[in-house]
């Protein structure tokens, strides 16, 4: 596997604040890597270093084997980027801006592909940018990125502001470029999106990569939130090894379930006459909390 993006022990400080501490990870050709972490963890800082917008204080970062700061222009010809917060020139139309971005790449604009994306994202390119909502400004950047024939796509919380339907369109588009052999780095704090798309994830917290690996590797760390209502009293669930943080409110039980213990859980509740069963996918916070509990447990 060729590594298209390679980050090796990069560091960055803003004044006295240390934003990144020896961050290392890589993205292989044809793979999509989720880059997750809470607000202020250092996701955007890392991405801005990768784009040559800011300069790392130490370590090395390369894309296509080229230094991200020194050879940014050559790299950017083959990279497409979408930030989480897109601001545009108020007096130009969305269509104009898309064309401008594409023409800056120097390559010929694939008109058909552009039109198709505009249709799929249900975007009106004739309005002035000042009239667009956050989600629509986001679409301008997304359409310009997907219409470009890039080899590496870098997304920094690209779906913030999109509705669930458009979020789905984004995911389809991401899969399509993957199928064409491109690589994607997707920074997000929406775990479900990362789960649906990513082969591997890197988790960053307070400027340090705390975990990276395939999603299956990490899944053992996750728990699912279960809300349960039964006819019979089920307070004995407290003693079960798969249940954590159990709280019982009248006849309703809420607890965290180890995600690999669903089977044991289902056979256990059978006799209690289940009235209602809801399970919520683990949120990123849950993953983090779970993750830190484990790390502390090991130490």
């Amino acid at each position: 596997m060729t590594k298209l993006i390679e980050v090796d022990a990069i560091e960055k400080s803003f004044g006295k604040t240390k934003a990144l501490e020896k961050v290392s990870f890589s993205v292989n050709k044809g793979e999509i890597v989720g880059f997750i972490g809470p607000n202020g963890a250092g996701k955007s800082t890392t991405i801005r270093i990768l784009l040559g917008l800011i300069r790392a204080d130490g370590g090395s970062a390369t894309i296509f084997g080229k230094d991200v700061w020194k050879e940014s222009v050559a790299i950017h010809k083959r990279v497409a980027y979408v930030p989480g917060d897109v601001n545009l020139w108020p007096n130009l139309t969305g269509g104009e801006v898309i064309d401008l971005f594409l023409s800056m790449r120097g390559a010929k604009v694939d008109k058909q592909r552009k039109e198709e994306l505009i249709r799929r994202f249900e975007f009106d390119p004739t309005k002035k940018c000042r009239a667009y909502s956050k989600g629509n400004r986001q679409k301008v950047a997304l359409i310009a990125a997907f219409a470009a024939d890039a080899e590496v796509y870098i997304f920094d919380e690209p779906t913030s502001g999109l509705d669930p339907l458009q979020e789905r369109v984004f995911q389809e588009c991401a899969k399509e470029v993957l199928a064409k052999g491109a690589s994607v780095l997707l920074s997000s704090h929406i775990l479900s999106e990362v789960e649906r798309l990513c082969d591997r994830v890197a988790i960053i917290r307070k400027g340090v990569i705390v975990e990276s690996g395939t999603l299956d590797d990490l899944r053992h760390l996750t728990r699912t939130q279960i809300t349960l209502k039964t006819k019979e009293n089920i307070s004995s669930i407290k003693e079960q090894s798969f249940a954590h943080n159990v709280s019982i409110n009248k006849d309703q039980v809420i607890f965290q379930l180890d995600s690999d213990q669903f089977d044991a859980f289902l056979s256990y509740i059978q006799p209690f006459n289940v009235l209602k069963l809801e399970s919520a996918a683990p949120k990123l916070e849950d993953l983090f909390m779970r993750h830190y509990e484990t790390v502390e447990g090991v130490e």
Partner: protein
Amino acid sequence: MMQSHARTGKLFAFTIRKEWLKLLLWLAGCAFYVILGAVAFVEVYGDPLERQAMAQAMQNPAMEALFGRAIGIDNYTIGAMYSHTMTIMGFVLFAIMSILLVVRNTRSEEEDGILELIQSLPTGRLASTTSAILLLVLTNTLLAVMSAGLLIGLGDSSMTTEGAVLTGILYGLVGLIFGGVTLITAQLSSNARGAMMLSFGVLGLSYMLRIIGDSGGFNALSWISPLGLLYGAEPFVENNWFPVWVGLVLSFVLIVTALGLKHRRDVGAGLLPDRPGKRHASVFLKTPLGFLLKLVRTPLIVWVVAMILLGVSYGSVIGDIEDVLAGNEIIEQIIAGDDSVSMADQFIAMIMGVLAMAASIPTVQIILRLRSEEKKNRLDKIIAGARSRTSVLSTFILTSLTVAFIFQLLQSLAFGGAAVAMGYDIALLDMVSAGLAYLPAMVVMIGLTVMLVGWLPKASSLIWLYLGFAFILLYFGGLFDIPEAVSWLSAFYHIPEMPVEEWNVWTAVLLTIIGTALTVTGAAGFRKRDID
């Protein structure tokens, strides 16, 4: 290094596309200024005797503080008169154009995150700054060519081709220099507002150095100031090209330094440190007034300091006027018409008007802040709270009124205090009343602004055109023949020029009523209309 400029051409073409209308309007304004000067002097001062009398009147510290060192006095041709009286104000106007242009195309875009998007495309690290520089150079070249052409076409025989070309080049250079200064401040500050304030600070400082240098006899200070330096070229009089070379080198150094700074720094970062803010909102901030004051605090402080310095600078030259004019009855007659009115008092009256207009800028800005909050979609958050539109608007209006009052009080105190300290015989109280007499005109300014914000929000900035018009009337009114009907349109024109004229209660009351009526009508519009 070539890589740093990749796709500058494409980006520049795009920059022109988004800027051409603004530049056209600015250049039209500049052209109007040049035409006004050239045509008016040829029309009004055709008679050499009249010009020579004017030359005599110009030779005193007060006039030099206003217009610049008296030049070409021995042979006060139309050209000399143009150079002497139109140059400094023109410089300030052209400098402002370039400062705004550079901030708009550099730090503003960076602050909005647009630069990040552009730089993530295969464009060089310096491409966007370089295209802003190209735009700056293009604009000022157009300004130079246009001004030179207008002067050659409209001037009389005293306006030589060499002088006209030199004038044009000076106009372009002043833009290049202050554009260059702004390119540097855009690297220093991490936000557009800060960069703009630093640049205006440099412009203000240059202006004050020039006042002290030109009228206080410290010539060296004038030469340190870029405005004073370029003024020293004296087109149509000396045609001195030395300042042009210095100016070109200075612009070049500023631009290259800015590019160097930009190349090294991170996108989004400023070279000056940002201070950490407060964790909690203070009790005061939670009140409507406290909130508004917090929004406009820093600019207000800068304004107050600048206005006091300006008042002191002007005040300190008053004492000298009497000395220069003592015994010269002819001049006093020409200027005052009758010798019972002193030249210095006339000067005081005029400066009071200038200061009042300057103080109108922050006054109007407070009301316009309401509009800019609206444009940034923040107004709805305030109005959506428990506050009615009327109460939000009245907070802005009351603050604006208070600012007008405090500014007039402080700057007339500074102006008068300096005059008294220099030994000029006038009561401080008279100076303060002369300053406060302008308040009714400022109420009209506030009223007009509220009208625009209430009924024509998209055209709110037209108020600056009106203020500029009033300023030209006052500043050049003594030089040009301006029809009474035109002057009449300016609210400031009606204010009695104390201490030369008597205070008139009816004018004050009438203007206040007009201003209040405009405000109330404007507020009604604001209550009814959609919030953007």
